[in-house]
């Protein structure tokens, strides 16, 4: 990927020359971007690590114990990291760590890991334990695979190693893969076991943040389709083991789940399709796609009835807020491309202009798709750093940004509204009702009276910027 971005002039250039190829401008003929590469040392990347990727995917399995094998930090920071809700067990919200000490680093941490597993089984008798390898565990060469196998045999439960040492890559995708491998291990039937086929579907890449899975489940139920199990929102070990019995896999968060979907197709003959339930248009399209798969007149009819009814509620909200938001300028910087695409679509529906989009883990095809959706001149960045984010927020006179926790306060400091659309959100944004919630959130932050006070202070400094934003 040798491409750079000829549309960006010298002054417009990225602040780091080495990062030029990770930035492009929509509307340019050469729509290729350098991505999927390691972050530059010292660039203040907003990315996380392999462990973090694995943890966010697996953590919502509600009745499993999630045991982090490493020094305390890795566990501490991922303490109840998700807003994933459970309809039953709450084991996943506890935070288990082997709390490795110097002695373990020198002599190896396996003994301690075994002791922790023993204690956990005695205390909680969980149906499964996921053992996450962190940097240190991987570095000193603890054989977590052997420890888990031994413990599994001892207790007759699934004790599954997750090979998520942070140094493997700065990219969460590698961690998604480690998690997917662990899940595949968990759901592959043991010798002689047969999982019966059903008419139900699995819903991959859905983590039930603020009950999001339940919303889609309700829609599907209404049109006559059952969810077998979601990966992994509000799932249990027993439900996951039923996964091979589905007739279809929906893939929502593609970054985290495409590989697994492919494996399920190969091993269990389950076809998959991509869906996206963020924003009303995406929701409608996805529901119709699912209905088409089942190809049943009853399902078709109920789908259309549901869409009509729900849109009656959504349309007036869009109309109402569109008046306030048309012409406002938005920026997006999120973890994955799937989310970026969903947000672009929703903001465009509100008449907003997207002037800057970036992701931490997008792939080349993703960026092409993003580029096709955006207007000429919109900036697209892979693995942006705060200096770039700051630069583009100011240069592009952005009114509101969608991003995660590390971007929120930077945006605020620059006088830019903010919508959290990350995996640690606690409030659902899915489906028609989520779309309404999202629109309101965009309005609240973009048009908050607080910016006026800020602008008054800014008046002398930068009159231009004020007049741009003053009509909220």
């Amino acid at each position: 990927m040798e491409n750079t971005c000829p549309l960006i002039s010298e002054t417009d250039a990225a602040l780091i020359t080495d990062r030029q190829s990770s930035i492009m401008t929509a509307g340019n003929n050469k729509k290729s971007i350098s991505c999927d590469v390691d972050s530059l040392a010292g660039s203040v990347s907003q990315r996380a690590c392999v462990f973090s990727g694995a943890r966010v995917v697996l953590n919502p399995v509600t009745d499993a114990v999630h045991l982090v094998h490493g020094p305390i930090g890795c566990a501490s920071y991922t303490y109840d990291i998700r807003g994933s809700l459970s309809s039953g067990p709450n084991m996943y919200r506890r935070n288990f760590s082997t709390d490795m000490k110097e002695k373990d680093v020198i002599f190896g941490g396996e003994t301690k890991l075994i002791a922790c597993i023993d204690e956990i089984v005695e205390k909680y008798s969980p149906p499964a334990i996921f053992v996450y390898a962190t940097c240190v565990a991987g570095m000193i060469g603890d054989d977590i695979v052997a420890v888990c196998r031994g413990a599994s045999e001892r207790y007759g439960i699934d004790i599954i190693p997750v090979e998520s040492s942070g140094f493997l890559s700065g990219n969460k995708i590698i961690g998604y893969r480690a998690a997917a491998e662990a899940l595949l291990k968990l759901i592959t039937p043991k010798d002689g076991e047969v999982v019966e086929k059903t008419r139900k579907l699995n819903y991959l890449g859905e983590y039930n943040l603020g009950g999001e899975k339940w919303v889609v489940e309700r829609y599907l139920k209404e049109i006559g389709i059952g969810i077998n199990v979601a990966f992994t929102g509000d799932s249990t070990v027993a439900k996951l083991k039923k996964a091979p019995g589905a007739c279809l896999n929906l893939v929502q968060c593609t970054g985290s789940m495409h590989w697994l979907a492919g494996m399920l197709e190969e091993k269990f003959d389950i076809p998959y399709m991509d869906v996206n339930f963020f924003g009303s248009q995406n929701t409608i399209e996805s529901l119709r796609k699912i209905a088409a798969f089942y190809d049943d007149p009853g399902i078709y009819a109920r789908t259309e009835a549901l869409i009509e009814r729900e849109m009656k509620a959504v349309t007036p909200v869009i109309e109402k807020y569109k008046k306030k938001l048309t012409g406002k300028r938005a920026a997006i910087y999120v973890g994955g491309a799937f989310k970026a695409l969903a947000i672009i679509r929703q903001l465009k529906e509100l008449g907003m202009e997207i002037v800057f989009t970036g992701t931490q883990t997008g792939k080349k095809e993703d960026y092409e798709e993003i580029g096709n959706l955006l207007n000429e001149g919109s900036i697209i960045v892979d693995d942006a750093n705060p200096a770039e984010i700051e630069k583009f927020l100011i240069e592009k006179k952005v009114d509101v940004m969608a991003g995660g926790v590390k971007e929120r306060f930077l945006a605020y400091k620059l006088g830019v509204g903010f919508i959290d659309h990350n995996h640690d959100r606690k409030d659902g944004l899915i489906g028609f009702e989520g779309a309404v919630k999202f629109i309101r959130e965009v309005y609240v932050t973009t048009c908050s009276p607080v910016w006026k006070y800020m602008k008054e202070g800014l008046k002398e400094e930068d009159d231009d910027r004020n007049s741009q934003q003053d009509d909220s």
Partner: protein
Amino acid sequence: MLDCVPDKPVAHTAGKINPIKACQPLGAMYAALGIHGCLPHSHGSQGCCAYHRMALTRHFRDPAMASSSSFTEGASVFGGGSNLKTAIKNIFQIYNPDIIAVHTTCLSETIGDDIPTIIKQSEIPEGKYVIHCNTPSYKGSHITGFSNMCKGMVSYLAGSDGSEKKRRVNIFPGFINPGDMREIKRIVSELGVSYIMYPDTTGVMDSPILPKYEMFPKGGAKIEDIIDSGNSQATLALGSWASDEPAALLQEKCKVKGIPLKLPIGVKATDDMIMAIKNEFGVEVPESLDIERGQVLDTLIDTHFHYQGKTVALFGDPDHVIAMTEFLITMGMVPKYVLTGTPGSKFEKIINGMLEDAGIEGSKVRAEGDLFDLQQWIKEESVDLLIGNSHGKYIARAEDLPFVRFGFPIMDRAVHPLMPVTGYRGCLRLIEMISDALLDRRDRDCLDEDYELVL
């Protein structure tokens, strides 16, 4: 619903369940942010850095900038030297900080990268600094890391020119909020003594919205002041886990007298800090501070019957918890369960000593404990109030306890980092929080006929 402990009591000896500590680099990063124009740098894989920034951002609700060496497998095998050198070059080129403060992570510690040598071999622009400290996460906690970075500041920067010491005090504030640092500086100013505080995160982690955003806000300790701190007459080391070692290092290196003190939380600890300055510099305590102190006493008298004799479960960072225990005893409350996640056997000794002096029996005290321990104790015998960081909210709900948020991290409430719990003003705030929590509970629980207007 959010019970962390099983029904029956079980021994808990291996690992941690719901920890009360984080790892060293977090503390090092926070300390480094307390130097003006500093970009903290995490030498290791990217995840650590992202986590530490996220943890600080969540508590302070301010951007926490920090860079990473972005280790991948290659660096883990061949050492991280070239990553660090590239990082240093990139950082000065892009972000142009005055100083880079490097800390290690478990990974670079395990590999054994020789940071001082790598720094020596790096390109450092004229007039700029690169300092470092080792922060192996498998030792101590985020508090140890904070202390280590303070030591790094002393060893790289502080110097003495050999002339007579200046009538000035250095303050090592410990791992506290910027609001507390501001309050401590105010008190010392009231006493008429000039000071150098470092690290000092005021203006950095409680930075205001200003017409122009600066990546390096106005706040933070100035490098030249840190350098000059070797010429000060004395150093207040506030909180022994965070500040004793850097103060001892400064004493050894530059012959600046170190005065170990508790964090000035509560009446006695605040008195102690003021008296230490009075004795060292021979200043008079101004009437303004007498008035503040008198207001605290007045408030304690006005409210003592709200909380007297109530039992408390308290957890958090050791320096915080030690000072708070002392204040709870002053208030006539009973610290029944006292825990910290940070290791250090002197914690138990200090707390037990305080309890013994106060004639309080039957309390449980633990260093290097976790919230599993705490909840199990509460299940065995409950308390009237829980005090600790945001993670305590699950126990508060499960055990139906009133809850006062105190310490780090507090992620579910705003404004905390700006409001002091130190000094006499901090006493008022703590009394208010504690009384209100208990009175709100009483209002919630009491029978209709006991529902009173005046309490």
